[in-house]
């Protein structure tokens, strides 16, 4: 598995889910990202580590089109999506979760997941109520089940606990046949049990679905990813297997030592 990943990374083309070339993002005078180049094979599971303010969330935002990079190009399965509208990228199979939950507080859990399934299929403008036999509704039911929210499927999202809202974030990213998912600190603020659930959900994802996970907790990150990229001050400064990263003295110094939090 690891050798496959390494091989496709060397080739640098073809089946790559994501190819970033020299991506940068400025906020006025602030350089939040610069010179980010990375290749991620289809089905690869990558962790991105880095202290607060390193630019990890900004990287996700440029990939999903929440805002565009100020320089560089982004390819998704070979297609240049650098300036494509966010919803178009989603329809091509890209998904994300947010570090700070972005949910529909007045809808129910099932309605939210149903919309996420509907968003990438037809009849988005339907003026009819979804029937239980609707394909998107059936899919929504199974995703709600997969993230352990069955008991709260008809609960209003605003009433859910923090942990449940994080699970719903993940549910929204799993809806509608994703090909590649960006998880932005999905484990933040979860109890140990909820973390175990999360790891289980991630490891149970179909093998063809690749993802990048941003995770502060090294233990979690290393259990759900096969390759790690380290970011610091808006730059990628090293990549490697979990063991390499764990034993890298610079990483120890920057990330694990001081300045984290």
């Amino acid at each position, binding site marked *: 598995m690891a050798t496959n990943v390494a091989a496709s990374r060397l080739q640098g083309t073809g089946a790559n889910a994501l190819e970033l070339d020299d991506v940068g993002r400025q906020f006025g005078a602030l350089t939040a990202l610069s010179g980010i180049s990375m290749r991620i094979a289809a089905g690869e599971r990558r962790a991105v580590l880095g202290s607060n303010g390193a630019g990890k969330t900004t990287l996700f935002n440029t990939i999903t089109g*929440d805002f565009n990079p100020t320089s560089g190009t982004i390819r998704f399965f070979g297609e240049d999506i650098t300036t494509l509208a966010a919803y178009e990228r989603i329809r091509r199979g890209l998904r994300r979760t947010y570090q700070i939950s*972005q949910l529909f507080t007045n809808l129910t859990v099932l309605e939210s997941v149903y919309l996420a399934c509907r968003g990438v299929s037809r009849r988005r403008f339907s*003026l009819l109520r979804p029937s239980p036999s609707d394909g998107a509704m059936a899919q929504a039911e199974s995703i709600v089940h997969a993230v352990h929210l069955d008991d709260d499927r008809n609960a209003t999202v605003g009433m859910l606990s923090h942990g449940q809202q994080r699970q719903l974030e993940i549910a929204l990213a799993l809806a509608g046949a994703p090909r590649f998912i960006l998880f932005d600190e999905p484990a933040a603020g979860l109890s140990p049990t909820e973390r175990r659930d999360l790891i289980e959900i991630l490891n149970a994802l179909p093998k063809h679905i690749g993802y990048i996970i941003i995770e502060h907790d090294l233990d979690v990150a290393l259990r759900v990813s096969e390759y790690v990229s380290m970011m610091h001050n808006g730059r990628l400064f090293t990549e490697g297997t979990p063991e390499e990263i764990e034993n890298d003295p610079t990483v120890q110094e920057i990330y694990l030592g001081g300045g984290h939090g």
Partner: protein
Amino acid sequence: MTDLTLTPAASRTASQGWIEKVGIGHILLAFFLLIYPVMASDFFLTQIGGYSLVLGMIALSLMLLAGYGGMVSLAQITVAGAAGYVVAIFGENNSGVYGFGWPWWIYGPLAIMIASLMSALIGWIAVRTEGIYTIMITLAVATACFYFAQQNYALFNGFPGYNGLRAPDVFGLYWRDPVPFYYLCLANAVVAYIAVLYGARSTFGLTLQAIRDNPRRMRAIGFNVTAHKVFAWWLAGLIAGAAGILLVWFNGRISPGTIAVGPSINILVIAIIGGLRHPIGPFIGAVIVTLMQTFAIDIIGAERFNTLIGLVFLLIVFVSPDGILGLWERLKPQAGRDDWRSFKKAANKAEKKGRNA
């Protein structure tokens, strides 16, 4: 023991027929509205009943946008007015300008179509903005339309507008006579009301509310937020357009005064007094404002009338930001989200609690 408590629950489920589904509030209201002509004088039938229903429909189109979509529009009377001008131009008028005399079944759909397209266009301009800026940009559009209609004689016949608009005679009835007009307004209002109530839980209704809650997340699950908002404006335009036709049949005329800033704010006041959380709100607001407009003027005089309505508005906004509906929800033992069946749910809950104890 368990059997004993479960039996009534089971039989209740069996009897959960259409009454349960429609809601007792709706049934009582429908009954009252249907027999209202028996009790009401012609004046109460048309000037209060019919007119409230028409204003309620226009305010309903605002409620759809604001309540479900989070877009507060001040241009709803403008959209209704567009339909009114189509009626004047393509139907009959006695202003000596246009008045092609087309039958109602051609100019009616045409008026609704043009109004809804105009609504979509206003929406398309307004969806770039959010919150207070939506209010401002729609106010700007409404004001521009008012001045344009006032100055343009070629199409809008300028300041005087069009007089002598006539409701049609169909099935041997003149539809501006009190009883037919009341039922005509009621039928239109009921269709619009049911459509909005049903549509709120439709796929599109859910997308609209989700966009209101979190447009960014909607984009991140594949929705073209702009397109969905514009579609909502188009739908609101259908309701406002239909109401616009009834409005000019009611008034017998249309002029720039119909679409001035005053009337456009009036619609907002109606919607907010009634409440934006449920489609019944705009109709409640319309009845209150119409009654006040009709009778407060007699009691306190025309000059003080706006002060009075302003005070009522302030009071309601302070006491209950969700309007009269909000007051009602708060006074009920258990607030339901958007239906009147919640008292039943509350009862079920209480019973469940009792059973668990």
